[in-house]
């Protein structure tokens, strides 16, 4: 079960012709797929396209009605390979993943797909995780489109244009026998807006038709000599076909041409930022009626030479607004104009920064620089927007960064607390990290983890550190998501084969938690449309690991610590795998809270727990925080006027996971932690014994309390 439920929103997928759809960008993409008559969708979750997967999951009955097959692929490579169904059959298919990381994984399949080409429309929807809030290396998907000759769409970021891009993408793919990539930036994925819906289309040619009437065409298979011919075909046929289709169907847009002898060429995705910048400079109205001609590339690869020449020929200079590096588009534009012997000056990365996100402030500064050079009369220097003026000195308030961290009650936290405790005994070890929530271990307060080489590659990242004469072992971490994605082979199989003597901790929290809690093979929950509840330990043994330990309750800190210590010190040689299991607290809470409430209402005995710290006995050392980092465990002013340091305190968001108490015990910290159990619907006997106990307790408290009379006013 995913973290966010779209059961209400997916009803919007049923909207018909002429009705107004209001909602999130990613939901609009789903609707567009259905309107385009898609036959199958495959994908792998990851921000910013996780919601696309979640929407499709929640919309499964609608998909079934339309005969659409939807898969949670094992990896992005799987998702991309799924598009092979469109090679021989007139089936429209879509694959989706986070980019560039997902595209990296998928690129083997994508390259094969692009070489042979497709018959049915094949659309690859990539969520471009670039700029603010991104959790990955900063690269462009653009390079993948170029190297494999796939067409790249980068539509203007409003719902109408995004939906149109999906529809155009399929048509372009079919017209050119080429897979098409649709790039959506993170904000566009999450943008709330509206568009006028169309009816959903049931594919005429079905998956069943394909299975029952198999087709093969050797010229579409990547094998010599066909592969050499395919390369020629890309250049000779598909490329010109694409340029022709883009031009004839006006996929790119020109606004307000003829108004000036300068212009701006921009990626579609940058349109809103550019218009806002022009608006603030007084060069456009809020509706995008610009005083500078704009050439909007809704298709950023390939460029259409004829369109470029036409836009540039009567202009002194154009500014290219192309986010990210290298400056593929700008270089391409130079080549086109040079070949055409046009003298139009091209500016781009000389006015704007080569690297980094093009925020509105960056774009304003860049456009200002360009205009200042070519049409200074257009801008009032005295009335420039703040973002185009030199930055005032930074304010003096001390503001700390807030990096993401483990949630309250996260079952992964005790694993790293245990590693910290073992570190105190055995000294530091090399820790190889992976991708997932567990990667937050590299940040304070844990500061564990030296490298991260990609999803599922945690153990592979420590492969070389396998010296037979070393006195310490390495620890690698991998999540259940990464494990099934590829870690079982790239990490575990590799370690067995190469006779590793090191340690792997598999964090098994029942979901791919970091991407929003999607199910995987080892999920504990029953899923009606997927096969779950398979054991990671069995899989690990299956590839030949002998030393396997499973901890079924990671909050048991002593056990967790002992098993890590054992793995690091045992005389037994060979790879060692610890499977640390506990359900993602975020998802567990979401599941259990309503259930508990119902139980209480029905009169069942339910205990709810929270932790607390006695401020009187806390001395303000904060060791407990340094071993936990829980958001619910924080500090508060010391109520004792004599003490200066703030005390630890547990705030209301505590879900009673118990780690605080465990830490206090196992690290022998302090006696300040207590747990409060609130019992709803206690039994009669319980109530009776409590009453008796309290009577005696109250008597003693009253008697001894007299000693304290008259101390405080």
């Amino acid at each position, binding site marked *: 079960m995913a973290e966010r439920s779209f059961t209400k929103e997916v009803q919007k997928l049923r909207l018909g012709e002429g009705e107004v759809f209001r909602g999130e960008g990613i939901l609009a993409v789903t609707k567009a797929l259905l309107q385009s008559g898609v036959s199958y969708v495959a994908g792998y979750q990851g*921000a910013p396209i996780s919601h696309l997967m979640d929407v499709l999951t929640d919309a499964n009955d609608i998909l079934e009605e339309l005969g659409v097959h939807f898969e949670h692929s094992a990896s992005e490579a799987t998702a991309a390979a799924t598009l092979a169904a469109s090679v021989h059959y007139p089936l429209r298919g879509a694959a989706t993943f986070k980019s560039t990381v997902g595209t990296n994984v998928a690129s083997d399949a994508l390259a094969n797909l692009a070489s042979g080409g497709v018959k049915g429309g094949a659309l690859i929807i990539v969520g471009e995780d670039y700029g603010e809030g991104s959790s990955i290396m900063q690269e462009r998907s653009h390079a993948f489109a170029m190297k494999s000759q796939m067409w790249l769409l980068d539509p203007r970021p409003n719902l109408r244009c995004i939906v149109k891009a999906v529809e155009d993408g399929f048509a372009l793919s079919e017209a050119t026998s080429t897979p098409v990539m649709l790039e959506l930036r993170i904000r566009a994925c999450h943008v709330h807006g509206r568009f006028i819906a169309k009816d959903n289309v049931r594919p005429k040619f079905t998956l069943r038709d394909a299975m029952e009437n198999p087709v093969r065409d050797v010229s579409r298979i990547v094998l010599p000599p066909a592969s050499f011919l395919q390369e020629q075909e890309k250049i000779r046929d598909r490329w010109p076909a694409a340029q022709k289709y883009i031009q004839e169907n006006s996929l790119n847009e020109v606004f307000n041409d003829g108004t000036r002898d300068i212009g701006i060429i921009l990626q579609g995705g940058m349109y809103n930022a550019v218009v806002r910048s022009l608006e603030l400079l007084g060069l456009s109205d809020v509706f995008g009626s610009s005083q500078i001609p704009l050439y909007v590339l809704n298709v950023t690869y390939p460029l259409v030479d004829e369109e470029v020449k036409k836009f540039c020929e009567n202009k002194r200079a154009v500014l290219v607004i192309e986010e990210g590096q290298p400056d593929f588009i700008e270089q391409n534009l130079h080549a086109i104009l040079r070949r055409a012997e046009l003298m139009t000056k091209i500016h781009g990365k000389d006015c704007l920064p080569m690297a980094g996100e093009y925020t509105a402030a960056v774009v304003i500064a860049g456009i200002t620089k360009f205009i200042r050079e070519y049409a200074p009369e257009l801008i009032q220097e005295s009335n420039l927007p703040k973002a185009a003026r030199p930055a005032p000195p930074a304010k003096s308030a001390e503001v700390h960064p*807030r990096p993401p961290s483990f949630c309250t009650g996260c079952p992964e936290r005790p694993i790293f607390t245990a590693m910290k405790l073992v570190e105190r005994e055995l000294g530091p070890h090399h820790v190889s990290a992976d991708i997932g*929530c567990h990667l937050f271990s590299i940040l304070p307060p844990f500061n564990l983890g030296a490298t991260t080489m990609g999803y599922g590659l945690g153990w592979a990242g420590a492969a070389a550190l396998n010296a037979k004469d070393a006195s310490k072992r390495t620890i690698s971490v991998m999540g259940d998501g990464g494990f099934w994605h590829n870690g079982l082979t790239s990490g575990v199989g590799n370690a067995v084969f190469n006779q590793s003597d090191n340690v792997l901790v598999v964090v098994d929290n029942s979901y791919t938690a970091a991407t929003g809690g999607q199910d995987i093979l080892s999920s504990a929950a029953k899923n009606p449309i997927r096969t779950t509840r398979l054991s990671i330990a069995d899989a690990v043994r299956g590839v030949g690991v002998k030393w396997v330990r499973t901890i079924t309750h990671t909050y048991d800190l002593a056990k967790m610590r002992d098993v890590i210590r054992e793995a690091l010190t045992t005389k037994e040689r060979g790879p060692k795998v610890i499977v640390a299991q506990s359900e993602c607290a975020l998802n567990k809470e979401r599941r259990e809270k309503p259930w508990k409430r119902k139980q209480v209402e029905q009169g069942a005995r339910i205990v709810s727990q929270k932790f607390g710290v006695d401020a009187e006995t806390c001395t303000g050392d904060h060791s407990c925080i340094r071993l936990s980092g829980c958001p619910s465990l924080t500090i508060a002013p010391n109520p004792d006027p004599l003490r200066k340091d703030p005390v630890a305190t547990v705030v209301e968001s505590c879900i009673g996971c118990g780690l605080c108490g465990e830490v206090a015990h196992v690290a022998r910290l302090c*006696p300040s932690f207590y747990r409060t159990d609130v019992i709803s619907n206690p039994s009669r006997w319980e109530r009776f014994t409590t009453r008796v106990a309290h009577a005696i307790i109250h008597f003693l*408290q009253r008697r001894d309390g007299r000693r304290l009379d008259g101390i405080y006013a």
Partner: protein
Amino acid sequence: MSAILQPVAGAAVQSRAITIAILAMGGEGGGVLADWIVDMAEQGGYLAQTTSVPGVAQRTGTTVYYVELFPEPQNQNTDPVLALMPVPGEVDIVIASELMEAARAVQRGLVTPDRTVLIASTNRVYSMTEKTATGDGRVDHTQLFEAAKSGAKILVHDDFAARAHETNSVISAVLFGALAGADVLPFERERFQQAIQHGGVGVASSLAGFAAGFASARGQNARIADVTNTKLKVGWRLRELAARIQQEFPAASHEIVLPAIQKLTDYQDLHYANEYLDRLAPVVSAEALHGRPDVPLLREAARYLALWMSYEDASRVADLKIRRTRFERVQQESRAKQAQLVQIREFLYPRAEEIADILPAPWGRWLMNSEWMQRLIERFAKGGQIVETTSLAGFLKLYFMAGFRRWRRNSLRHQRERMKIETWLSLLIAIAPEDYQLAAEVAESPRLLKGYGDTYARGVKNYEALMSALPQLQRKPDAAKCFRKLLDAALSDDSGDKLTEAMQQVAA
């Protein structure tokens, strides 16, 4: 309506969008708040666009939700182009769910004095840096507040988290109320409330939170500040001692010494508090010789003497755990209803040393020399104990432990601490005439002695390292500065690395 945006919203054709940025941390409902605003605007004849960059920032990091509103155009084909991210200097309304986030919004240029109405909650959600400091790593509250105040055109502030707590609601609802109350959007209060009803989740509590936020923004929640300083008043039992303090101690030390005698009487008895004042008397004389009106030496010596004399031993911890007032406090914090039972469980880990500490000295020494007894205790406490103080058995266990208070003066630990305290005090008094500043620093050094178990042992080790470095330092001209450096180093990390480093630097 719409005091701030009237010239714009009231015009026939609005020339630009209303821009709103919401800064919240993961799990605070920033997305819900944005959705309410969008729904309200759409129902109110506006075109609304919102977007965000959630991703991993949802996991407790900070996120910005950005909303733009524009009156629904007559012609459906000419939609305005709305931006997907805030432009520094061009934001009308910024909502921050916490004070450091408000300061961050100012720092990022989202809040500007010519334009922005900043709706900020003044509560603090401490950053990891602030939380993990071994001492006090908090950023100055007033500094953050001043940044918010001077950065904004209008600052609407209150502890909205507290209002949420009081109304059993969530901060997003309270902030939505404050947005309505701030009167900056062209919508009536009813429209705001309809959006909450329309959302359909937790409507009743959200509306309660909304009302509280609305009232705050309208200044209706203003509380009368507590001007009576109760801290400096003592009860009847301490009247005589208080009179002695009035006579013998300079006024600037009273805010330390008065709570100190309360604490020590609470800890042991009246005699103990009296003993405290006796011990402090030579420091008063030393201070008088020097004549600093703010008496820093005396204040710090008074503070740490009181804390040292009230060291946390097992009987003190037990005594505090079983008190009636504590039971009541926990009961209240739990928000349990009449029909529910509340149980309190303590996480204790008694060690042989700690048991030995509260025993009469000869017994304690015997215990520390008897390996089998220690093993027995370790076995008994293996893995720590969870004691239910609200059960009779658990209560009596701690009650018994607390009873050792009566013999505390003869206990092993008391003897040990008394000796150390005397050494420290005489050192202070000896240093003060020669180097007052150094004496004041030395007065603060018992700050290192805190925590329990390993933490305490580490503190003791650091303290002793400092004390042994003292004779050598005293010969230096900048002795006080050097000593301060060592003290800060010892306080700044728990590995001891910084102290070792600082020691080397000072010795060099």
